């Protein structure tokens, strides 16, 4: 990762970026397919779509955003973001989803 001239830099493999690009493209196609068939898939469609979006986000973060070769501090910050968003989801939904819906 370290280059004496320019400092730490991106890994120089264009082929791997094209591979990841292709994978995410395939996931976009999968998302469209799920949506077009969601009448037959039923309630699971939203979970499938979120799973696909999660996979797309992971590929982007790991390869395009260079988490792959990142230092521990960057991983800590990325992990903290996920942890805090989890707190936000859990505590807020814990409140709203346990209230009487009739109140709204």
């Amino acid at each position, binding site marked *: 990762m*370290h*280059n004496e*001239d*320019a*400092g*730490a*830099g*991106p890994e*120089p493999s*264009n082929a791997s*970026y*094209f591979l990841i*690009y292709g994978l*995410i*493209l395939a996931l*976009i196609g999968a*998302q*469209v397919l*799920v*949506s*077009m068939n*969601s*009448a037959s898939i039923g*309630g699971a*469609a*939203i979970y499938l*779509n*979120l799973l*696909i*979006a999660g996979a*797309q*986000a992971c590929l*982007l*973060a790991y390869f*395009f*955003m*260079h988490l792959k070769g*990142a*230092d521990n*501090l*960057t991983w800590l*910050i*990325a992990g*903290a*973001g*996920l942890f*805090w*968003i989890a707190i*936000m*989801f859990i505590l*807020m*939904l814990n409140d*709203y*989803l346990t209230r009487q*819906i009739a109140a*709204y």
Partner: protein
Amino acid sequence: MSTDSSGVLCHHFDNIQQQQSAARMGMWLFLVTEVLFFGGAFVAYTAYRIWYPEAFLAGSSKLILGFAAINSVLLLTSSLTITFGIHAAHRGDEKMLKRFLLVTILLALVFLGIKAKEYYIDFQEHLIPGTLFITPVHEGHPSPAEEFEAMGVNPGHVQLFFMFYYCMTGIHVLHMIVGVGLIGWLYFLATRGYFKHKERFVYVEVTSLYWHFVDMMWFFLVAILYAAGPHKSLF
């Protein structure tokens, strides 16, 4: 403010690697705040989606999935081109850097153009919360509210879905415009020879982090807004 002969290293850093790490960490910290910023909207959407699933599915099925898919491809391709831009900057190849930045900007502008077209179609179909929603689209045709009521769905709840749709895609568009501005600034700097010092590639890299994040948010918006409901056709 710089202590090295090239003017790249700022005086308060020991070396260029430390300076680059600080730039990356700063952007990652900013992105964490962005996650929480978008997160509030996602949590609110989740609560209402759980309360009114039928209305949200019905609303989603009115959105144009084909536009969303094309925009996903455009944004993903722009993520690829800006990544190649980092490589060009890392090599000190300003000519290629400018090309990649320009292609990234063009892809983003096409995205924004498609989004504008989509908003216009939504406006024409009166898929906007408020008075238009209860106004017939054409003489003798039902309004969106009447249409959804005939489907057995509460039109008020569908309007809530569209409120989320406009707020969330609007925030995303705002981020896109900021991103285009930042990449445009990098392009301007490249025309002035700023990236002749290849150590400065990190400024392209931190901007790309923001750009990839905008891309990432779009994937989740497609999942919960466009692809959530059943679609019979792409357009």
